[in-house]
């Protein structure tokens, strides 16, 4: 292999052949690999700077071995084996995470969960679906759509993400203002713990029966255990779907429209507000939006409710001097919502970029946008920083920033990337924001966990230590910075 490894400090595995033999005894000969092409395939996830590393002839990190278990029992045995030998275990779903949480920074055993892809039960009365977590999001949607249901969780990575990844990163989808985020959708789960034991949490609509421990695994990024099965909420496929689009003169008016709509307990499924740069980039065909902020609303559900939601949105938008842009921007949004071309277009041109999503309460919203954009623009080589507001709550908002620039002066490509991230984190924390809304921490944000949480981080580490005393579950993520 003619490639450098970025995260070089792999753990030493004394008897790798013996480990491989034992893994083959658990999962079967064909479901364990130490082949070079497989190791390189699992060396990265969708963390954006790792695309730059491809052209720089680097791989992020190499696992020692990959295993594809067929069921929980095999997952349990694999983790037990790893616990006995104190070998890192890196759960791998579809590899769509953008913060590097699936990168084997210390090597170890990458456990790919793709074979756990079955729909176990669809319950119409309870409106639930129980699935194995290796199932792909779009594949699951197809199965449910054929039966007349949807989950309503549609992140942009929908086509390339697994249910396990959604849970591990506490993900949020495009239609989440109505259907909720993954934590609102998951009802129960099965987890293989760091000692290999299997825990099933009880299924109920709601209970007052002590701390909800299953909540710990949402956003744990594989550091506390491996979620292998989950029961999720379902909804009947919506009867009607309709959208409206308005252009606003500034963030204040656009955000106020959404805030006042949600305050009335009206929840459009999709709400997106694009700043003037992103409006010009995505909605260039709409002359009424020039220099303004395009705002797209999509409502869905039973027809009467959709009509009421649309009427409420229209009324509030008009009060804020919103300019009605008709249906075209809505259609354009639907047509392009999965068009992710930037990574392919810009990376070979030596442009370094990423997206950063953060959240804050309404009172800090405009200031947070201004502060993050201003901080990022101070980074030498920065060419663009823009944002859209992508998720909304009666209490606040998520901004989804994009930055792009070039390594300039003394900054290498990696240094520029880190400086841009640091700038966004500084701007967010300065504005009382939270450093991640739905992508997670991984290795990209780990150094910002202390400023984000303060003493609470120590509490998290105590929980981690209690559940995984030997730190075998996905080390180098969340609570600690990985060594290079």
């Amino acid at each position, binding site marked *: *292999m*003619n*490639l450098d490894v970025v995260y070089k400090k792999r753990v030493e595995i004394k008897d790798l052949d013996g480990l491989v033999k034992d893994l083959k005894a658990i999962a079967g000969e064909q479901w364990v*690999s130490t*082949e*070079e*092409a*497989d190791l*390189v*395939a*699992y060396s990265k996830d969708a963390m954006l700077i790792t*695309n730059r590393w*491809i*052209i720089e*002839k680097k791989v992020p990190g190499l696992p020692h071995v990959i295993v*594809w278990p067929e069921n929980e029992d095999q997952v349990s045995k694999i983790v037990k084996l790893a616990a006995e030998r104190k070998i890192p275990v890196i759960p*791998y779903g*579809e*590899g*769509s995470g*953008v913060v590097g949480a699936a990168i084997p920074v210390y090597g170890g055993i990458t456990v*790919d969960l*793709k*074979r756990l*892809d079955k729909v176990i039960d669809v319950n119409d009365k309870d409106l639930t679906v129980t699935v194995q977590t*290796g199932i*792909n*999001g*779009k*594949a699951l949607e*197809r199965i449910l759509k*054929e039966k007349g249901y949807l989950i309503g969780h549609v992140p942009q*990575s929908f*086509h*390339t993400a697994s249910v396990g990844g959604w849970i591990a990163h506490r993900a949020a989808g495009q239609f989440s203002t109505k259907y909720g985020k993954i934590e609102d959708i998951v009802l129960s789960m099965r987890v293989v713990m760091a000692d290999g034991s299997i825990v099933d949490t009880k299924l109920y609509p709601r209970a007052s029966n002590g701390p909800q421990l299953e909540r710990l695994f949402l956003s744990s990024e594989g550091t506390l255990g491996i979620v292998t099965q989950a029961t999720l909420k379902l909804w009947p496929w919506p009867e009607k779907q309709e959208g409206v689009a308005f252009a606003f003169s500034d963030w204040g008016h656009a955000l106020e429209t959404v805030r006042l709509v949600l305050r009335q307990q009206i929840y459009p499924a999709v709400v997106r507000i694009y700043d003037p*740069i992103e409006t*010009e*980039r995505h*909605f*260039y*065909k*709409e*002359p009424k939006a*020039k220099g303004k902020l395009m705002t797209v609303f999509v409502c869905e559900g039973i027809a009467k409710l959709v009509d009421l939601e649309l009427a409420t949105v229209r009324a509030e938008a008009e009060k804020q001097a919103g300019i009605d842009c008709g249906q075209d921007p809505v259609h354009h949004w639907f047509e*392009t919502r999965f*068009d*992710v*071309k930037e*990574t*392919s277009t810009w990376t*070979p*041109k*030596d*442009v370094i970029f990423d997206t950063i999503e953060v959240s804050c309460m309404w009172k800090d919203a405009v200031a947070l946008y201004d502060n993050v954009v201003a901080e990022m623009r101070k980074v030498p080589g*920065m*060419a663009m920083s823009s944002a859209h507001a992508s998720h909304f709550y009666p209490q606040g908002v998520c901004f989804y920033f994009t930055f792009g*620039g*070039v*390594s*300039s002066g003394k900054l290498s490509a990696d240094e520029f990337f880190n400086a841009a991230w640091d700038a966004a984190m500084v701007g967010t924390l300065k504005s009382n924001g939270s450093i991640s809304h739905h992508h997670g921490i991984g290795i990209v944000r780990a150094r910002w966990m202390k400023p984000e949480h303060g003493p609470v981080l120590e509490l998290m580490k105590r929980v981690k230590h209690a559940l995984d005393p030997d730190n075998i579950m996905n080390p180098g993520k969340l609570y600690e910075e990985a060594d290079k």
Partner: protein
Amino acid sequence: MGKSSWMIKLFFSMKPSVAWKFIKGFTGAKKYYKTSSGNAAVDMKSLLKCAHCPNMCKFECPSLRVTHKEMYAPAVKARLSYLIERGDLDPADPHTAEVPYLCVNCDGCRNWCPMDISTGQLLKAVRADLVDMECISEDLKDFDTRVLENDTIFSKTTFSARPEFDIRAENPDVFYFMGCVMAEKKPEAVLANIAILKKAGVKFSTHASERSCCGGPSNTVGFRATTRHLAEKNLALFAKAGAKTIVTDCPACADTLRNVYKELGIKHDYMVLTTIEFYKILIDQGTLKLEKPVNETITYHDPCISARRFGDVESARHVLGKVPGLVLKEPFLTKEETQCCGMGGVSHVHHPTESEAIGSQRFAQLVKTGAKSIVSSCPACEEGFIIARENAKGKDKVLDIAEVIVNALD
């Protein structure tokens, strides 16, 4: 506002040093598009584009869904193939050399690609490079030897054993080019096509005993010299037969004759049509009349090549819609979202287990419609479903569209 106006505005707002780096980046990107061998036939630019994508077509890849291995996800196949071509991974390692082959060339990825990239099309050039480097499996070497020896992907007698296939007309208008798979596995469909053409009054020849494989399968797995050799033989036969229109019962043959020959620099000016395209024309002209009721419920499987490469999902439905009494029940995933039958990419030759697993998945979707007959217009798909039916111990009929139409002839 224009499509690029945001970018132009952005460029002019940059500091000069940053703008200069942007220009250098744009003009210097080609340094990343070089193969270690200097082979210009490999589209490194598109391979890298695909490799850099977060795999937005991942759910649709049949190879990935049956292997469950990241190595076979479209963008990962592209990334590893890019690294092979750049000399960073060694194709002499048989496991590495397998990467470009676990793709059934169904173009499902392209259907969802915002950049209109078919990973499978890119991998064909990588496979050709592996053939040149002699880094291919014994199964593939045997396949090439067989094709060169027999002029078909099966036996020497695929076409010659059936004299009823051999038709020679004086000054024919049409050359009916039957596919190897149709002739070997579905001879009843060949006879149906012959009956339909005769009934419609088409003056046609087949020269069955003289014809060769189109060369498409060889091209797909990387044996381009073999494809060229077969192309020369077929074009000589077409010239001898004298028809200006080639009608084939196999979409893969149609793609090869229509597109692949040209991609390989082999020029001709024959009009190439699939049987369904031709029958649609004949029906619209009134020369093919489907008047006898066929009181059956069928489901129709769109071949990947027809639906996604040719963008034609209407011809078959148009033709089937003219059959009196016929009821068509569409599968849930249909038309452009059709799924692979498992036989694409010649995968049954080099990865039979995965090929059959893919075919079984699609077969189950078609059976779910409740129709008793599964109809397609591609012999490879039909073979895939016959294998899947055997594996499932099913009783469903698997028919070529010609076998349905022929029953509607008076």
